[in-house]
């Protein structure tokens, strides 16, 4: 299956969850906000929320700004 993460296509052998995706990308989940198909996802459901074929994810973070 394939999904788009921050505008880039990623390929996986099988369906995954948000938690496994973050793990695969080596992303610290304390720093990020996840938007899954346009919907903001609570950290408490990262382990249950399935990522399916053609899904779109945005991994967002807070950065310095004025």
């Amino acid at each position, binding site marked *: 299956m394939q999904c788009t*993460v*921050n505008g880039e296509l990623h390929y996986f052998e099988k369906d995954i969850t948000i938690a496994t995706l973050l793990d695969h990308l080596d992303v610290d989940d304390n720093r990020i906000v996840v*938007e899954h198909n346009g919907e*903001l996802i609570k950290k408490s459901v990262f382990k249950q929320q399935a990522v399916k074929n053609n899904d779109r994810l945005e991994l967002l*973070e*807070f*950065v*310095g*700004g*004025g």
Partner: protein
Amino acid sequence: MLEIGDLKFNSRLFLGTGKFSDEKIQAAAIEASGTEVLTFAVRRMNLFDKDLPNPLANIDLRKYTTFPNTAGAKTVEETVRIAEIARHAGVCDMIKVEIIGDDKTLLPDPIATYEACQILLDKGYTVCPYISNDVVLAKRLERIGVHAIMPLASPIGTGRGINNPLNLRYIVEQSSIPVIVDAGIGSPKDACYAMELGADAVLLNTAVSNAKDPVKMAEAMKLSIDAGVLGYDAGRIPVRYSAQASSPAEGLEFL
């Protein structure tokens, strides 16, 4: 005491967290500024260079009121989306509504700002819009219920100081919500002048982060804002056209 919505502050310096060259210097500058409010932006995470420093790593965010901005948004929809992301992440005590309407000057879009403020107020945010020195817009925004007005001193990052003191004064005089002068502050005298004009607070970033010594500049800004507040409260003398001697005119017969 400065009050914005339900929030109360002793410090009248709000500090942006962008463009610091070093995390430790940033943390020291924040400390030296005495600020209680830090601003942030929301961005896509860079997945291919995770070694990029996290500018917020050394800051205990629980000690500060977090003030995310909507910088980067150019439409009402993008603005609301960024605000929702910030609230979802639990870092949104207030939201700075910043909608750039012109890429060259980075001046804000007044119509989109007004519309976005209306939506965010309906959603229950503490809303602080960034605006040009537009007295009428400030009045209209206050009428719909925004919690503070953030008129610019001069375009973002220019360090040109207060370009339009007259309009800024008009905004301060007709406003019954806090006025936070935001953007374009270059030196301590600019921050002091904003407070002398009657502003309630100053938000600055580049003036500190890009100073040769950001920690010293943070302290200088803090002191200049305190001086400006004192000066405003003390009530300055009127500006006169003609000279008036400070020493008595009497008792000069011995000359």
